[in-house]
């Protein structure tokens, strides 16, 4: 009933392989996008922006990045926090060194720099795989955080060791710094999210994405049929780090405004993004959004319930939150290892036939 396919005919291969082959789906996404661009910026306030929407959008970009690497190319990475730090510090250095250049270009360049770093740390993936690689990416996490802590050049020799985003404008609107309005911050993040999702979707359904998936499903077989593991794995690391770097740059410049590397980009960030990918669904762009939304909303919800609703002390609530997050992750893995994206797909399958069972 809800998913009308009847009469939705395709007459060319091009139509058949588009991103949203069902017309209803396509219009639904356009509608969501239209609401996100045309309605939300006018009703947004500080609380919604800083507690929910900005983190959701930024972590979506990071989750898309990690999903490219882990979900599509099958290379588990625990170094996401470190790569986000690279994006943040790259954008900081660029913003302070070239103040006259537009900040959008800075953020994209920061993504590019992160991609290079990611490729460098992806090199061992040619020799090692699985858990060994997952642990090896921790090397990136710890080394990069240490580097940004120890080399004063990265934080412009500031006394506190913190980096603070200067004010930069896009089309006359301040998007970074304390003067930026929630709507401007929201819109710039939204623009990058749409860009990331669009790019990732098209990369993953094209030739390069199929190479990644071939490597993920069986690397030796992929090699035999002519996929070059070197380019496939390194391109996955590069593309993934590009998005993760953009997410780090946005997190620092637009959302936080000031950051200290061990606190903002520690190992917990790596796990957080990994949880988003797993709970959302490996190998799904929609899953990246679903996972990010889930992991951003859950703490807000729990905090409102436990501290606001029951009046428990904050530290106790924080510990219980840890327990619930852990238990939920296990629960999800047991009930639906393919994540929220798979649940959504099941719902769609059901709705396609509803109200008739067959």
């Amino acid at each position: 009933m809800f998913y009308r396919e009847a009469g939705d005919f395709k007459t060319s291969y091009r139509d058949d392989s588009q991103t949203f082959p069902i017309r209803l789906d396509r219009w639904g996404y356009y509608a969501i996008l239209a609401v996100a661009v045309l309605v939300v910026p006018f009703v947004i306030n500080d609380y919604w922006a800083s507690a929910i929407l900005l983190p959701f959008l930024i972590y979506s970009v990071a989750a898309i990045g990690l999903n490219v690497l882990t979900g599509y190319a099958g290379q588990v990475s625990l170094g996401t926090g470190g790569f986000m730090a690279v994006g943040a510090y790259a954008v900081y250095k660029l913003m302070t060194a070239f103040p006259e250049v537009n900040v959008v270009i800075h953020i994209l360049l920061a993504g590019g720099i992160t991609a290079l770093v990611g490729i460098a740390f992806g090199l061992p993936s040619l020799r090692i795989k699985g858990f060994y690689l997952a642990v090896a990416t921790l090397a990136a996490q710890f080394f990069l955080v240490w580097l940004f802590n120890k080399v004063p050049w990265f934080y412009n020799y500031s006394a506190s060791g913190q980096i603070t985003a200067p004010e930069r404008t896009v089309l006359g609107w301040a998007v970074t710094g304390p003067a930026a309005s929630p709507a401007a911050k929201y819109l710039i993040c939204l623009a990058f999210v749409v860009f990331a999702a669009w790019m990732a979707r098209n990369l993953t359904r094209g030739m390069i994405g199929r190479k990644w998936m071939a490597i993920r499903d069986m690397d030796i077989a992929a090699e035999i049929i002519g996929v070059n593991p070197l380019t496939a794995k390194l391109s996955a690391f590069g593309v993934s780090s590009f998005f993760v770097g953009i997410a780090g740059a946005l997190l620092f410049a637009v959302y936080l405004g000031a950051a200290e590397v061990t606190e903002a980009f520690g190992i917990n960030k790596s796990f957080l993004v990994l949880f988003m990918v797993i709970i959302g669904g490996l190998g799904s762009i929609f899953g990246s959004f679903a996972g990010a939304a889930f992991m951003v909303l859950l703490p807000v919800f729990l905090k409102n319930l436990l501290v606001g609703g029951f009046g428990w002390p904050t530290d106790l609530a924080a510990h219980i939150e840890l327990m619930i997050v852990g238990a939920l992750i296990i629960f999800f893995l047991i009930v639906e290892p393919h994540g929220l994206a798979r649940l959504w797909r099941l719902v769609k399958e059901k709705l396609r036939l509803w109200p008739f069972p067959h």
Partner: protein
Amino acid sequence: MDQFFFAAEVFINGLMTGVMYSLVALGFVLIYKASGVFNYAQGVMALFAALTLVGIMDGQVPFSHLINAMFGTHLSNFSWTVGPLVAIILTAGVMVLLAILIEKLVLQHLVGQEPIILFMATIGLAYFLEGLGDVMWGADIKTLDVGLPQGISDTIEQATANWFGYGFFIDRLDIWATFIAALLVAALVAFSQYTKQGRAMRAVADDHQAALSVGISLQFIWIMVWSIAGFVALVAGIMWGTKSGVQFSLSLIALKALPVLMLGGFTSIPGAIVGGLIIGVGEKMFEFWVGPLVGGATENWFAYVLALIFLVFRPQGLFGERIIERV
């Protein structure tokens, strides 16, 4: 000459730290060998064990914070304290209970899933246990004293001062840790070689299917392995807890045990020990020689980078099984 002796002292201290790393790495290896699960929660298990031990010794009321918050009561401690030995036995019991619960509630439902899903489940478990430990026993930093000797050993300092004219500073706790670790490894080896359960454990490690078909209960073996890992975590927790207090950072030593495993190989008990020693010595020596040149605190990442570089040349680690892949 003093420089040389100082380096030697750093070396010996590195060895001692390495033993501590090995203790945590051992727990990982046991579980990985017997069930193919990479147990990220091992470090948190050590923290949980140490918290429980302190809680029992001080006669704390478990969940007192939660109960107080829910019912407005003011519970804190029972009026008794428990001796170290009894407390250790009780804690070991708790760890066995935990192993049974983990098997029943988590692992049983994840049989046959991909290894990465199991790994993720143990990360979830780590979060859960961390929260549980804090809710149960409170998150404040606690001191743990089960009667192990601590502090700089005067005898060694005196003796070396007489022999070389340079007094070595070596913590007595480290010496004891080395001793206990050796004992633990000997016990584990004896258990796996000479007991029926130990042989069954090795059979499961070799081949699940074959072990099942000769009538070995996988469930029982998994519970046993997790219990042993829990006990190893308890020993590690006692050592680290005595050394640096029982607090959250204790669970982070698990992260240090990971490069130890990579170096030694995931499936090898000797590998865990040798890897631990290499990492322990390596990071202390690196910090000693190179640390001052680059601003110090290299201990955070040296182990990982060493393991990473090493793996590029020998992907299965020092003692790991060679991975043979067939299409």
